[in-house]
């Protein structure tokens, strides 16, 4: 892979397998998943429960090591990285939006947004100010000192989006970002997520089982029983 390609490809997943031992023998959760996400691209991985989409997101998010295969993030192969190096990459290159209740309950909204700044390289005061501005950007500047228990589900997810972007990551990974929200709030949160990512040139990979959510992305990948493929039907004009 050339440097130019590496820069353009935020994420490259190459023949990723994942096998877990069970009492009945080895169970293969992923069968050679391969795909690429380009810089600024938005994509969705769709699949039913148990299809392997969460396992794939865990591997792409460097939370789980693949049994075989390679995940390249911003040109950096990750399979041989140490735990600390993977933590650094998660901190600086990836942003995460989880399915509901993903804020640290005893931290204020502003502190939750700044949480990734507590780890990895030291940050300047300008970067800290940028964290505060992110909260403004998601429309919650007034709630900076509120704790999560005083925020609605939609507001919590907006704080989570701000937190995911605070290190200006190249790739934002979202796991059922609207799963815990009502339809209207979910749509508003998804709008925000995609708009902000687009404005900052951040690639987005959404894992969902919701057709409506997947339809908002530029590309759909389908995972069935651990086998990943392009959703040709969605790609058809």
């Amino acid at each position, binding site marked *: 892979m050339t440097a130019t390609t590496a820069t353009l490809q935020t994420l490259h997943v190459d023949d990723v397998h994942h096998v877990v031992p069970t009492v009945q023998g080895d169970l293969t959760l992923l069968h050679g998943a391969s795909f690429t996400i380009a810089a600024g691209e938005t994509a969705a991985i769709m699949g039913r429960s148990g299809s392997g989409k*969460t396992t794939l*997101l*865990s591997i792409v*998010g460097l*939370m*789980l090591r693949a049994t075989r295969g390679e995940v390249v993030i911003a040109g950096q192969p990750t399979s041989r990285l140490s*735990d*600390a190096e993977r*933590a*650094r990459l*998660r*901190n*600086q290159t990836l942003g*995460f939006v*989880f399915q509901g*209740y*993903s*804020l*640290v*309950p*005893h*931290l204020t909204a502003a*502190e939750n947004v700044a*949480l*990734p700044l*507590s*780890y*990895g390289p*030291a940050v300047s005061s300008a970067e800290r100010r940028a964290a505060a501005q992110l909260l403004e950007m998601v429309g919650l500047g007034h709630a900076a000192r509120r704790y999560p228990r005083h925020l609605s589900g939609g507001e919590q997810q907006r704080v989570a989006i701000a*937190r995911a972007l605070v*290190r200006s990551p190249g790739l934002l990974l979202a*796991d059922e970002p609207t799963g815990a929200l009502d339809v209207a709030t979910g749509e508003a949160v998804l709008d925000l997520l995609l708009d902000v990512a687009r404005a900052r040139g951040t690639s987005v990979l959404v894992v969902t089982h919701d057709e409506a959510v997947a339809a908002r992305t530029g590309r759909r990948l389908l995972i069935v029983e651990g086998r990943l493929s392009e959703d040709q039907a969605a790609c058809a004009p």
Partner: protein
Amino acid sequence: MRALTRTCASVLQDLRAQPLRAIVTVVAMLVGVLAVVAVTVAGAVTEGLVIAKSEQEVARETTYSVDLTARGGNSDADAFWDALSARIPTDHVGLAMLESRTIWPEPAAGLDAGTPVTVWVVQGDYRAIRRLPLLDGAWPNAGTSRPPVAAANLAAARLLDDSFTFRERTQGVLAVTGTVADGEPAPNLYIDWDVAHLMFPSPVQRESIRVLVRVDHADPTPVRRAAEAAATSTGWTVQAVERHDQIAGIRDELQLVRTAFLICGGIALLVAALGIVNIGLSTIGQRSRELSIRRAVGARRLDLLLLVLGNALAQAVLAAGAAVAIAWVAVAVVVPRAVPPESALDAPTLPWTTVAVALLAAGSTAVIGSLLPAIRAARIDIAAVLRD
């Protein structure tokens, strides 16, 4: 440095996570730390008081008594003193020769007829041997002033006028120049050896004398050698050279008591540590999702380990601070009441080592108690954040 600052900031934020549990943990730790601090402080304060009292009533540490008996009829106490002074090791810190007499102040001085007062005739620096704080006036020095001067203890000072007439074998007048606290209830006067010559025809009545020598080590051999050499040339025989002060025995007894209480304190700390393990493991179980989120946004295993350990250490600092504050108040309020006013001894203050002991006890309890929870936090399954 920045990493340390960030870790400290995270730790302080983290104290808000489970405030009630943090308080319970601090209290559990405080009980154990307070036990150890109490033993340390009580030990130090008691030792300070008891030793000071013993130094006042008996002698300071490493004081030896040399008992001599006259050999024949030409034994001269002054000659022995001069000979001993010349021979005594140069590292001695106090040398005194004592002789006691009893006098009867005249009833006109406001006393019942026949009230005896003991006069201690002192050669040398007796206050280097015993802790005898002056309450007022001055210690009687050698001289030929008239009338002869003496220092009175509190009991004698209450009985006697500044100048009074007394009866011994002859009649005389004595002036009190100072009041000294010797911790004794009976009336005592202290008078210089040379002054005693003015009062009494022969200060040494008996065929025996006692010399007290204070050195800065626990080996009596040099003292014995000097005393024997001085005695041989001046007509005296050394009967015994013995440890005169009681400090070593007091220290041994206190150390025994302290050790027993320290074991109790250690058990209290161990129980506190087990409580912290229990609370810590429970807390980590409840915070597993939050910890997974922290890992997801970039925390290393080490960061979570330090977060949990740091949290416990912060609580330890609070517990240690509270223990020191309680100890300080107790020492400031209780100890002065335990010191008899007539002793004129300074009330011991809180030893600075209390802070170190409190921090060490609390810190070690925190580390022991939080290590297992910290390791569990560091091993938390990061991918659980996606499955929950």
